[in-house]
């Protein structure tokens, strides 16, 4: 599996304004198994890029290809299969169900396409320090806790690419490291690539290449 970007540019961007970018309007290839760190200051389109890659939005020119198929040609069913088997994401706005418990939020993803046995949820929660929050309503958790919930949820399924959009913005240094460690372990177990976008470089992310957006 390979994801390739062929000169993509959000329709609301000017090509002249992004001439310095190593992603926009450039040919980029994300090979399976290779981690990529995208460093992006505010307003450079980091979240848009993640949405484009995950097939949430199509408002860009150029092409994003999963192997030979353009993501714009994926219908809703095909996108669903892609999200179950090939690609997982931690969105910047997290997108959790506020009225469900932390456990239910994670389990609903695990049920859809299972990679781990069910007790792994508690084990992961324990590693990230939210084990006693599992039965709490998600909406009542702090933003930092919610970030960890979203990370654990993204790690329940099989994937070849894991997209992370500022996944640690509300975590302290110790928790960032723990989360990064867990994520990299999980990616290795699947021989998967991590594409992590953040405002500045994260030192403990073992990236094969660094791209400035």
């Amino acid at each position, binding site marked *: 599996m390979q994801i390739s970007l062929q000169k993509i540019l959000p329709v609301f961007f000017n090509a002249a304004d992004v001439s310095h970018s190593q992603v926009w309007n450039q040919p980029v290839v994300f090979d399976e198994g290779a981690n990529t760190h995208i460093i992006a200051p505010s307003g450079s389109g980091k979240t848009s890029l993640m949405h484009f890659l995950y097939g949430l939005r199509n408002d860009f020119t150029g092409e994003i290809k999963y192997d030979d198929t353009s993501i714009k040609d994926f219908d809703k069913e095909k996108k*669903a299969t892609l*999200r179950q088997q090939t690609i997982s994401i931690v969105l910047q706005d997290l997108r959790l*169900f506020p009225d469900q418990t932390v456990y239910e939020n994670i389990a609903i993803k695990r049920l859809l396409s299972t990679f781990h046995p069910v007790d792994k949820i508690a084990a992961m929660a324990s590693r990230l320090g939210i084990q006693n929050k599992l039965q709490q309503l998600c909406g009542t958790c702090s933003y930092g806790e919610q970030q960890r919930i979203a990370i654990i949820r993204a790690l329940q399924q099989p994937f070849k690419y894991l997209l992370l959009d500022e996944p640690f913005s509300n975590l302290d240094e110790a928790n960032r490291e723990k989360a990064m460690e867990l994520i990299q372990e999980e990616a290795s177990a699947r021989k998967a690539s991590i594409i992590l976008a953040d405002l500045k470089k994260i030192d403990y992310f073992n990236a094969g290449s660094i791209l400035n957006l």
Partner: protein
Amino acid sequence: MQLSYQHIKPFLNTRQNTASRWMGYFGLGLGVILLLVSVQLYININVLLKDKNPRKDGYDYISVTKLISNENMAEAHSFSDAEIEEIKTKSFIQDATPLLANTFLVKASGSSAIPFTTDLFLESIDNRFLDTIPENFSWKQGQAIVPIIISADYLELYNTVFAPSKDLPQFSEKSISAVLIQLECYAPDGTAKIFKASVVGLSNRINSVLVPESFLTWANKTLGSNTNINPSRIFIKTTDANNSELLNFLQQKNYNINKDKTKFGRVKQLLQAIVSGLSGFGVLIILLAMLLFSFYLQLMIARSKDNLQLLLTLGYSPNWLSKTVAKRWVPVYTAIVLTALILAAIFQWAFQQFFLNNRSDLSPYLHWMVIIIAAVLLLLSIFINYRLVKKLLLKL
């Protein structure tokens, strides 16, 4: 663990608007009962009002004329060849033939036994339309005696009204054949041909004075003023005089028939129209209930929009979601249609037992057609529900 509706149920806002959901269920049930019962009644009417008069060969023979009203009195009331051909082509009419009438003046007078004299008319019809064909009902040129078939009603009228008032003898069906009548046929120039005639048979089917076709053809040609006169009476042969298509055709053409023959048909037409209206009303209620239910679905999906959108973002397939959400109503719809079917069956049983006092010609069970309609309704509502949910989900 297999994913099921139970897993996504917490994400759907199903508790809202229960009143409109239950109204939808109730309306659907009511509409289905109304439709099923009226279809069953339609079938009952067909069974009960079938003409059961014994018929010799399974056909009705009916005389058709053109309706004479105040508006069209001046017009010709005869049938053209095209009109006869049109009648013959109709699938509900098995055969049709014109009644040929005399085009010359005929006078009949009795012998000394029954002294009377009268102007008369003669008609002839193809032998295949006669109920009884006496052996000697034929005529060849030169034959002095013309055989006649008269309506059995005429003999009855003669015996019961005419003969007693004039002090004339009464005749049985057999003895009438012994009476010879004198037939005087006049050409327009006044020349007359005289024949003897005898009544060789009585007809219960045709109200007329019938002579063999060969005689009338010859006499019209020899004595008649106009040989190409169109017939004003047509006899038709049909398997069911109460067939609504036949009645509609006759009505539309303004043709007149013996109402006695078709009285069942008229009642049946009226009852069937009422019952059809009732089933139309049933369909209308079903449609309204489905509409109400679709509002409930739309509201539920709109209120669960964020959750459903997030499920799709997480990778839930729209197909799976619509199927799973729609499947939730399969038992509900099944229960509604089954209840309606059971109530319709109870109705039919009670109708046969109590209203018709267990009449043997009507089954106390539902007709298979009603059961098929119920099954089709069930499948249709499940399918419509699935399409609606899917459409709403894909719009998210």
